[in-house]
């Protein structure tokens, strides 16, 4: 592996949040691809039951099972898992209590329904629990010995990194702070112990929370509020992923004047005529209006960029994919993330 500087070396759980509409699922998927490139193995975990990951990678809906969804550039694999809280609960009961067959009775009494849809924190601890379990999971001993005989070092991790497509910014601190969430409900007992184990991973230096945003006021405000809240909860803030950035089409001077409503309409008329278009005056007037609108938006975007910079976190800018988000677009975003040192 190259010795180039990457911002998140040592981080094994990347939580990606963002306001609705900022493209957090797309960015989580791109980050997973970026982290996997160069021969690594990354798990992308979806927790909101939307099957957005399957749509992005153009594959059938994901079952509750880890499967490979993409091959990364220069080797490497992205696996994906859509966590279903009910299945996770039954799996958990089986793993810790050998209670698989109790599922039917529990379902009949509404216990499963209660635990996975209503009880505060239980659903969240099941979802985060699944992700942290994947972070800690190691290759089985016998297999590790076979691959590297004669070593006594701990077996390698199954996944080099886990990326979680997490709930939106408004709920992220509560979602990750499962300990506080279940505290009111279960002050002792196995659920509490499980929550403590999950928290250990989430609070460690191995976990960071990245924020997806746009160059618009409200998403940016929510991003900054979210950063403060996550930091306040004692969790590690990762980077700010600025999505759907449009390339500049005009030089700064022209933009500054256009923002004041000054456009050289005569020059536009000349140009439109030279291009051989009909009704040059009318077209030039329309183009001038569009220039002014564009300049105002660019000015607003630049204000937003300054405010985002005030958070003092690494920022990555991802281009707007004008043809919509498809598989090729994901690879392009992944490459951009790598170029900027995010992976």
């Amino acid at each position, binding site marked *: 592996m190259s010795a180039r500087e990457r911002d998140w070396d040592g981080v094994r759980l990347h939580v990606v949040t963002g306001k609705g509409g900022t493209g957090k699922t797309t960015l989580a998927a791109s980050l997973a691809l970026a982290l996997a490139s160069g021969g690594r193995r990354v798990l992308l975990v979806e927790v*909101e039951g939307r099957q957005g990951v399957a749509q992005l990678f153009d594959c059938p809906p994901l079952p509750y099972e880890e499967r490979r969804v993409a091959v990364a550039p220069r080797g490497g694999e992205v696996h994906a898992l859509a966590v279903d809280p009910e299945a996770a609960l039954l799996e958990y009961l089986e793993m810790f*209590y050998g209670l698989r067959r109790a599922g039917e009775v529990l379902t009949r009494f509404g216990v499963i329904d209660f635990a996975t849809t209503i009880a505060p924190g239980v659903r969240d601890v099941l979802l985060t629990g699944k992700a942290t379990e994947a972070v800690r999971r190691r290759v089985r001993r016998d297999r590790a010995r076979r691959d590297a005989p004669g070593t006594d070092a701990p077996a390698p991790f199954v996944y080099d990194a886990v990326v979680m497509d997490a709930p939106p910014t408004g709920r992220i601190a509560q979602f990750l702070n499962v300990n506080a969430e279940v505290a*009111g409900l279960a*002050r002792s007992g*196995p659920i509490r112990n499980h929550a403590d184990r999950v928290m250990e991973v989430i609070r460690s230096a191995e976990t960071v929370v990245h924020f997806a945003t746009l160059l618009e006021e409200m998403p940016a405000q929510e991003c900054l509020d979210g950063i403060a809240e996550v930091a306040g909860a004692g969790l590690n803030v990762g980077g700010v992923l600025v999505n759907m950035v449009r390339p500049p089409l*005009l030089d700064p001077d022209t933009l500054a004047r256009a923002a004041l409503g000054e456009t050289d309409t005569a020059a536009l008329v000349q140009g*439109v005529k030279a291009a051989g278009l009909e009704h040059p005056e009318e077209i030039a007037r329309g183009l001038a209006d569009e220039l002014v609108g564009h300049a105002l938006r660019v000015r*607003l975007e630049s204000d937003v960029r300054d405010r985002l910079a005030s958070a003092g976190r690494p920022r990555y800018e991802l281009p707007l994919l004008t043809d919509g988000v498809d598989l090729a677009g994901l690879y392009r975003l992944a490459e951009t993330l790598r170029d900027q040192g995010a992976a």
Partner: protein
Amino acid sequence: MNPTGPPRLDIDVLLDDPATRIIVCCGSGGVGKTTTAAALALRAAERGRHAVVITVDPARRLAQALGLSELDNTPRPVPLRDPGSREDGGSLHAMMLDMKRTFDEVVEAHADPGRAEQILANPFYQSLSSGFSGTQEYMAMEKLGQLRESGEWDLIVVDTPPSRSALDFLDAPKRLGRFLDGRLIRFLSAPAKGGGRALRLLGAGFGMVTGIVGKVVGTQLLTDVQRFVSAFDAVFGGFQERAERTYRLLQAPGTAFVVVAIPEGDALREASYFVERLRGDRMPLAGLVLNRVHSTGVPQLSSVRSLAAAEALDEHGEHPLAAAALRLHAESARVRDAESRLRARFTSVHPEVALAEVPAQPEDVNDLDGLRVIGRALADGADRP
């Protein structure tokens, strides 16, 4: 503009009709639901209604847009410094839902002081009122019912909670009600009621379930739940019925649902799903508000021709400003075309759904004037002569 297209959603007719008593704004996250709700309430107030807008959004964005530093659980008057305000003018109040406070108030209103105190101090009640998924939706609907009953406002505009699913506010209250009235909670509380008979009625599997629940969550929780239910039962009973009542209020003739979306694939897919669900539940749908619609300054010049013209100018290295403007236009024409395609996909599936469009604003809304602009745009979306 589009004579064969979908019917236009005439916002002013909706707002001016005294029979319209409740407007519910729903849709997926990030589509401008809160702003739409505030703009509708403001416009209604300035057209003479006594309107109140309830928001449940924790980001406090409505507060910013309404020029208030903070909202709390009681409706606060919003000063309308409209210079032309009439004598018979309307009024606007705004509030942000505090779910715990609302729940506490329900308890305080229904229980005698001693019992209320006992309930409020119960740890299980405290999780229930501040953390249970569904409580926010339940309490939003509870608050809606309260405001409707108070008769102080003739129009209530509701912004729905930012849920896991946009439909949660329809489902969650019933789910929570079902749980509170349900088998599980009766069963968890059975020992406190000395109910050997109740236990027998629950039948087989009882011992197994107590065993598992006790083992997994600890016995402390069981005790809390038992105490909570016995205190609560005496006061209320019928959570499900309460939820049913607000659900029926939503189906009543004075209610209008406004589905909010933006011209993007996911948002319109969600809107489509929502329209179908509302129809299935016989909820009165007023129409679709499509926010952030882009238009161009030169509608007759297509994206392809504009780009070709820009390239022609580039070849000669002349007229750089015009070339850049043409590229910019090519991009905005492309966006407009893509949005038209998405809208057409929606309207061909739902030709009967009335539509109002709000153009993308150059800057975000952060004051009443900004909301007025949105309100006017909503009304103009009706394209009246």
